[in-house]
């Protein structure tokens, strides 16, 4: 979710295989650099592998170009990497959130083969995505400051998770 010169990214903490809960502290949101976060929903192992590969690419980029990747650039990279596996895809839906030039917030999501979806307000992904769309749509206001943004995203997350049997066991919220 986008706020005034800030963004928030949140996820639940359940890792499950249908009805069995495997973990209640699963990390789904990863920091790429101080102003860029990546959330990966979907298949757990694909999320971890994709994250490792993206960190690898980003580290090399940092060494070569002597700077951090801009969020828009990172989104293009993720999209390209996902499409490379067009006929044997990663079963992940990434959510990318970052602060670009002049700390302008940038968010986007993609499907599992890299179709980017940019938005100015919020993006959602996961098993409870339909519920999340509804919750965010009703709770979102433009230009919230970081405290209000934190409250809003948390409420939207909790209300959607509570209506989804495959999500739950708490939440992680990052506000930058």
């Amino acid at each position: 979710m986008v706020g005034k010169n800030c963004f928030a990214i949140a996820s639940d903490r359940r890792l499950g295989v249908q009805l069995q809960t495997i973990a209640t502290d699963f990390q789904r949101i990863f920091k790429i650099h101080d102003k860029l976060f990546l959330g990966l929903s979907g298949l757990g192992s694909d999320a971890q592998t994709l994250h490792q590969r993206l960190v690898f690419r980003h580290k090399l980029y940092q060494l070569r170009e002597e700077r951090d990747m801009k969020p828009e650039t990172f989104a293009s990279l993720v999209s390209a990497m996902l499409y490379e596996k067009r006929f044997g895809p990663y079963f992940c839906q990434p959510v990318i959130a970052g602060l670009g030039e002049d700390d302008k917030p940038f968010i986007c999501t993609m499907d599992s083969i890299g179709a980017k979806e940019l938005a100015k307000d919020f993006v959602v992904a996961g098993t409870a995505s339909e519920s999340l769309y509804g919750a965010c749509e009703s709770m979102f206001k433009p230009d919230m400051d970081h405290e209000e943004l934190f409250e809003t995203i948390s409420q939207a997350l909790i209300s959607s998770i509570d209506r989804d049997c495959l999500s739950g066991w708490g939440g992680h919220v990052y506000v930058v």
Partner: protein
Amino acid sequence: MARISSLSSQATLVQKIQILTPNIGVVYSGMGPDSRVLVRKSRKQAEQYNLLYKEPIPVTQLVRETAAVMQEFTQSGGVRPFGVSLLVAGYDDKGPQLYQVDPSGSYFSWKASAMGKNVSNAKTFLEKRYTDDMELEDAIHTAILTLKEGFEGQISGKNIEIGVIEADRTFRVLTAAQIEDYLQEVE
């Protein structure tokens, strides 16, 4: 950059200055055919970067990759080094930049540089004339004067080429008519 010219050559059709990306241009000194191969490779590398990151390639990155190609040909079997030195000029987020790339694959960043037959005179001339706060017009003027130093015959819009890039980040080659205008100021 002086063109080959004689009574029988149609010099205007083949340019020495080439565009690598909309914001990076290159000129060579040495063997023309070798430079064409490098220009082709560099253009492809720049476009691959653009395809991946949806962003124009920074000048340093393109120079690095081009230099890597040139170095490869000094160490691989059955090939010879490229017989060209390149001057790469571009404008990116770090501002305007100029790089020289040698056949060895080493590259240098310059504020002002020259290469070719008259290189030592030209560099001495530039050292005297170059200032950090030059405007574009002064820079073109200085470049023409530098070229004129070692020029055999009559300099004209038809036998030199000038490539320019400013804050609009678009590399353009001046037309013969535009060059004539600048030459008249020099006279």
